[in-house]
């Protein structure tokens, strides 16, 4: 292989199967033992507009999609000029246009080789205008030297009832490329370094983690980019008879139903994005005071308000940490990749059960809706922590008994002698309302003391790279992939270490010790104000030398990070 990572992009209007062709390409890659990382962009529309799906792949691990593309397919004409900036001199641009028909202004600006691909004519020969995406896939299969029969089998498995049609489309693209583009063929030799078994979107991985963690109540109101988890879990109810997935009337209903379900004994999560999460705030506060453990899967998108619904941002970190009125313990954790999305799916349920308080898993559109190849997540059987449950309470059972560490065993409704009042008012050890000053303070202290165990159990930070380097990059969440991919490609990679915070609240004091071991601190965040910086500043003396922010709705690409680190 001459080049380590290849990047392909499919572009076209919504409704033309851009996502499908991307997914198929990924499936074919997996069958050839490639590693991959993908990224899709789509407008908040059902038809029209400009959709893209790009996939970076390699025989080594690919942590994030690359910015510069090697091959672009414009599925219908004119869906490539949007990407002029992503072309290099070697980029191949396939489109169903003659070069003399193209707007000369674009053509002049463009780098790369423009190759005319008569998709419409080929599709008409096959007898369906719909298969232009599959024909492009046939061209790609030829260029990347994929096994033609394997490619057809995968495409057939995907399109089931339209197997024959799509198999012919693959053949047509393949043959056309063989005749016309043979000089661009990449004679890839397959020498896999790892065995990849599947690829997952973050939302899927989170949902699989939720199921592996014996999650049995998931409640949501559709909101991009969290909806993937609702769809995925709703479809699992047949296979998991105890699982209840509810699409409730609004997010206020979602959050309050979740409180009831968790109180009744279910391992419960809700899913939403920023706007819906705002509506859940009062119920989260209720969980805090009544000590009911609920998980909030918050998949961010750019705000304020409706914002840019189908794009990405890490702009809700402070919102998550400060959510819910009043003061109560809360745990905020952020997965950085697909495997961590899976892990936090069950870890969050364990934490909610054990600490009996709200747990927020904060992801974003980039992580939630992008895929990366990894191990078979369905095979993993995590440890389940149901928390402290009182099965045989005595006749004077106190649900909110003061205790060392603040955790009092709970009873589940149905348990004899376990009756108690869960209360949104401040309450005594039985749960009955109180306005007594001494009790109010004692109850606050009891709840707050749970932070100690939370700190012990919440996921620890990752430290990557050269631990004795001078420079430390600090980040959280979905920027992990682009940062690791940048460090893989940057020349002076041994100059850097990278600290990925997985628990954003409470902040572990050990973080300070790690940071103090480095001379130069560089923070990278996908938001406009440096929210992690504010949080760390609130905890200890923290003065990063550089803060790199991005807040245009797009994720960081590794190339951008390399450039920033080199500056």
């Amino acid at each position, binding site marked *: 292989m001459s080049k380590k990572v290849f990047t392909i992009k499919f572009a076209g209007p919504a409704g033309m199967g851009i996502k499908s062709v991307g997914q198929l390409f990924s499936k074919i890659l997996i069958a050839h033992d490639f590693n991959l990382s993908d990224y899709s962009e789509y407008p908040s529309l059902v038809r029209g507009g400009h959709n893209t799906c790009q996939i970076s792949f390699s025989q080594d691990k690919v942590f994030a999609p690359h910015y510069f593309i090697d091959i672009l397919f414009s599925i219908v004409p004119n869906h490539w000029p949007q990407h002029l900036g992503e072309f290099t001199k070697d980029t191949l641009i396939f489109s169903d246009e003659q070069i003399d028909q193209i707007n000369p202004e674009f053509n002049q600006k463009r780098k790369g080789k423009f190759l005319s691909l008569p998709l419409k004519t080929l599709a008409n020969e096959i007898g369906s205008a719909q298969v232009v995406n599959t024909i492009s896939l046939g061209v790609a299969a030829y260029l990347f030297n994929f096994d033609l029969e394997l490619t057809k089998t995968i495409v057939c498995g995907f399109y089931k009832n339209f197997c024959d049609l799509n198999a012919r489309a693959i053949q047509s693209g393949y043959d056309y490329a063989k005749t016309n583009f043979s000089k661009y063929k990449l004679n890839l030799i397959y020498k896999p370094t790892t065995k990849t078994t599947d690829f997952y979107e973050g939302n899927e991985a989170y949902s699989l983690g939720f199921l592996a963690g014996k999650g049995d109540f998931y409640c949501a109101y559709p909101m991009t980019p969290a909806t993937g988890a609702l769809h995925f879990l709703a479809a699992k109810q047949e296979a998991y008879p105890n699982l209840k997935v509810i699409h409730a009337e609004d997010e206020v209903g979602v959050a309050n139903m979740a409180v009831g379900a968790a109180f009744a004994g279910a391992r419960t999560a809700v899913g939403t994005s920023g706007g819906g999460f705002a509506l859940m705030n009062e119920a989260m506060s209720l969980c805090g005071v009544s000590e009911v453990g609920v998980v909030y899967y918050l998949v961010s998108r750019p705000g304020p308000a409706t914002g840019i619904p189908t794009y990405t941002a890490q702009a809700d970190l402070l919102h998550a940490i400060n959510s819910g009125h009043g003061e109560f313990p809360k745990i905020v954790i952020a997965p950085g990749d697909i495997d961590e999305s899976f892990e936090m799916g069950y870890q969050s349920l364990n934490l909610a059960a054990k600490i009996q308080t709200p747990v927020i898993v904060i992801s974003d559109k980039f992580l939630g809706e992008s895929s990366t190849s990894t191990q078979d997540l369905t095979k993993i059987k995590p440890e389940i922590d149901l928390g402290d449950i009182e099965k045989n309470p005595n006749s004077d059972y106190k649900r909110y008994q003061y205790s060392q560490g603040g955790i009092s065993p709970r009873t589940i409704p149905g348990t004899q002698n376990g*009756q108690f009042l869960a209360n949104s008012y401040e309450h005594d050890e039985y749960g009955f309302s109180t306005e007594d000053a001494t009790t109010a303070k004692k109850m606050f202290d009891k709840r707050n003391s749970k932070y100690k165990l939370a700190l012990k159990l919440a996921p620890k930070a990752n430290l990557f790279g050269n631990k004795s380097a001078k420079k430390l990059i600090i980040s959280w969440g979905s920027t992990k992939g682009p940062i690791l991919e940048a460090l893989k490609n940057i020349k002076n990679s041994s100059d850097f270490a990278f600290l990925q915070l997985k628990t954003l609240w409470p902040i572990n004091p050990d973080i300070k010790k790690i940071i103090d071991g480095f001379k130069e601190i560089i923070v990278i965040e996908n938001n406009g104000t440096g929210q992690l910086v504010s949080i760390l500043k609130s905890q200890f003396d923290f003065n990063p030398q550089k803060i790199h922010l991005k807040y245009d709705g797009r994720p960081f690409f590794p190339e951008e990070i390399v450039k920033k680190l080199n500056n």
Partner: protein
Amino acid sequence: MPTNYRSSITPTWCPGCHNYLVFAAIQKNLSDLNVDSSNLVMNYDIGCAGNFADFFKTYGFHTLHGRSIATAMGEKIANPNLFVCVIGGDGGIYGEGLNHLVSAVRSNINIKVFVSNNFLYSLTTGQTSPTTPKGSRTKSTPTGNINVPVDPVKLIKSINPDVFVESVDNRDMVKLNDTIKRALEFPGFALVDMIQECVAFGKQLNS
């Protein structure tokens, strides 16, 4: 022997408040039906009506204002074996939380909702509520309420005629008991709208 659902806390409503009647009637009928208090979950809204919470000793949830039905639905869906009830006021159930009521009625979920309908927000000292008659002067509508009131029975029946919904005047104790009994026995969603006068703030409604 009747089942005891009482906590040791003495109720705190105004002397003469109809909620004492409601409290007695609900306890009697739960006991007549032999509902096991360890399998019973009472959900309380916020308001004077929600203040039943401390006086019962069953599994209970004193929820948020308007959200008691949503919380109750979560419990019932998570564990259908539980006997799940809601007690709230006209403000919480027909106002703040109306969307949850609509949702529960549409699904005909087997929960029992008891509404102390006193035509006012009483705990907050007497403002207009969704059932306040048009023209009534309240603290928040000193020149008279301009809105027509919600008719809960008509509203609910128009959404789903298969659920149980009846209005009853609390002064008719026999009818109140009978209605609560039938609601508790109904194999689906049941709501009893219990018409009552708030002795502290109700006078202004007729002024």
